[in-house]
């Protein structure tokens, strides 16, 4: 029984933040929610968590409406990080655990386990404001999962972490999945999605433009990528331009990259090259990358939102949906 989001629509005043959004996530899987800034990811997550109500549509987990589920079903790592700055780490984590009804002894053991796993056991009795941003983020991740939620929803969990901590967090993701948990996260790092996610949905301006398993999404693009290199310089392959249906996406000194429509067998390109007496040094057939799929659907590259973070420092800028929330 999976998490099913069905036809969710949400308006903020005259702005449509989410328009008939549907997707589903299989239990025990890692799901990537992709979209440009302001696409509606955060609103969508908040509706799944039932901290915001949709105008229409519904969300179910294992057949039950999210409005009827106990709160400890969910773990949430918001995009805007925040903890009580002047509380000590362990005290703070115990507080959040108590809100989810975790027994003190269980909470204590979990806190110790996770602090060790994230290699910060010494910070246990330090105030949060004394920790680095990256370490605060790890504390917040622990706060989101101490109560062992079935579904873990994370908004941009990797932004602001150094490579070592990104690796630690990825390990934690996989460990959670191996415990049978369902993970949903949004990110701008397409490689991370390709590495971790079985399924994805791409949201653009409040609409789901693509959803499904990563493999299906790539297949459905209806084309393959061919990379071809020959002896001699790249200018020697002008004949490629005359082949019908083929689109050259990159012509470098080292190789030429082509998009081949699904109805054409890529090996015909190789045959053509050999017939023309070219000396082929590289011939590669690949699926399109997620980055390409994203650009194709959204119209531009997925960029991290570092600039926006700098801009909203006094904490008065809107979250994910600037236009949408400024009602």
């Amino acid at each position: 029984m999976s998490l099913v989001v069905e036809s969710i629509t949400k308006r903020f005043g005259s702005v449509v933040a989410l328009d008939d959004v549907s997707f589903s996530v299989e239990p025990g899987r890692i799901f990537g929610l992709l979209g440009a800034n302001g696409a509606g990811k955060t609103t969508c997550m908040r509706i799944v968590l039932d901290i915001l109500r949709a105008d229409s549509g519904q969300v179910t987990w294992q057949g039950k409406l999210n409005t009827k589920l106990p709160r400890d079903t969910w773990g949430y790592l918001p995009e805007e990080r925040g903890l009580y700055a002047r509380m000590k780490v362990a005290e703070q984590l115990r507080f959040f655990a108590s809100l989810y009804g975790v027994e003190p002894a269980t909470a204590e053991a979990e806190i110790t386990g996770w602090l060790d796993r994230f290699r910060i056991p010494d910070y246990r009795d330090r105030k949060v404001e004394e920790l680095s941003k990256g370490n605060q983020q790890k504390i917040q991740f622990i706060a989101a999962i101490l109560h062992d939620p079935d579904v873990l929803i994370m908004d941009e969990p990797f932004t602001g972490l150094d490579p070592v901590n990104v690796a630690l967090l990825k390990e934690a993701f996989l460990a959670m999945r191996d415990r049978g948990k369902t993970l949903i996260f949004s990110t701008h790092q397409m490689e991370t999605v390709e590495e971790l996610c079985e399924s994805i949905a791409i949201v653009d301006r409040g609409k789901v433009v693509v959803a499904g398993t990563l493999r299906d999404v790539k297949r459905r693009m209806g084309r393959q990528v061919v990379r071809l290199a020959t002896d001699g310089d790249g200018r020697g392959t002008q004949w490629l331009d005359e082949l019908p249906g083929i689109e050259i996406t990159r012509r470098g000194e080292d190789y030429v990259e082509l998009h081949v429509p699904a109805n054409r067998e890529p090996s015909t390109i190789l045959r053509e090259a050999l017939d023309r007496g070219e000396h082929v040094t590289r011939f590669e057939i690949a699926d399109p990358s997620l980055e390409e799929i994203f650009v194709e659907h959204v119209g531009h590259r997925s960029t991290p939102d570092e600039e926006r973070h700098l801009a909203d420092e006094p904490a008065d800028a809107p979250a994910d949906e600037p236009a949408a929330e400024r009602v």
Partner: protein
Amino acid sequence: MGGVFPNALHVARREYLIRVRGRAFAITTGLLAIAVLLLVLLPTILTAIGIDKPPRIAIAASEAQLDADPVPLFTTVLTAANDPSGEGASDEAPSVSPVTDTDAARAEVEAGDLDGLLIISRTDDDELAFEYVTKAGPTSQTRILVEQAASSLAIGERLEAAGIPPGERAAIFAPPSFTTVTPDPSDASDSEDFGRNLAIAYILVILTFMAVITYGNWVAQSVAEEKSSRVMELLITAATPRQLLTGKILGTGAAGLTQYAAILLAVVVGFLFSGSVASMLGVEASAVPQLPELNVLGIAALSGFFLGGFILYSTLYAAAGSMVSRLEDVQQAAAPLMFLAMAGYFSSFAALSAPDASWVGIASLVPFFSPYLMPVRMLLADPTQLEIGIALIVLLLTILGAIWVASRIYSAGVLLYGQRLGWRNVLRATRVSR
């Protein structure tokens, strides 16, 4: 979803500990307790260091050619007023001394060594004329007493001129039987009780106002802080708005009551020890204020109004705090509540001087004002138990309504960032909140 407890208690516990552990709390509570203790001991201390010393006056009567020495008369009048028991120690008694050098005496008044100089002379038609040289204002008790003694001296002389023998004068000056009666025999409170109750009413009104303003602001600040530090998103995922709101008010209220308990303790300590402090300083015990008698039911009702007022206002303060994104904006959002609280505060001062006025009777049933006005009436007028009950029930219902409204504003407000402050936005947002 689920009850309010136990999560409200977890929230309250955190709120209380953070509040009480803070250095600001310890310092404020300590200073308030010391201030109150000093206030209670003030009369004793003032007597001991001699600020409250008995009056000293001089009389220059050589021009008047009086039959009898006026000094004993003035001494008796001043002593009777200063020491009703009539058994004061000799060094505590007022001093009245005859002088002949008026210029020297004037200089002494100027220097503050004498409270006043009374010059007695005669007019052309042989009437007594008095000139009193003093720096004291018209409300000074000594000045009033000197005037009284002077007129009885003059009247005595006129009576003698009219042929009434000195033996009959005492009967003429004897005070008549004078009793004050209220129309309702049940509130036959004597004037001493009224004065004490007035003081208690003053203190209650001030304490209620301080609690509403101070602790209401604590609640608003705390909500706004959680919002601006973005810890709110974690909280709102873990607990319902009603749990968070209730916990916040309970925790802050408990911290506030802790502070008040410390102050109350200082008052009790002050009353308990003022006797020994007085004897230590060599002051007579009658100058020490006494603790008023307590009526259990009345105290319960007064506490109900105090707590109800605090809860009502802090619930709305929490809603105000949830509407802003920055701590600096809290005051602005809470301004309407501040005005409401001040309206109640000032109207209760008007009520202190006219506790029986009909507008006070009506306003004491209105929920935002009853926490101030009903206690005033209970102490100074005589509201029926029905009226007190109605005021309490209306207050309770308003609190329930306020919690409902506030938790809707709160659940909508806490996720709204970066907006211009506005009730319209918030009201619109409440329609889509859970």
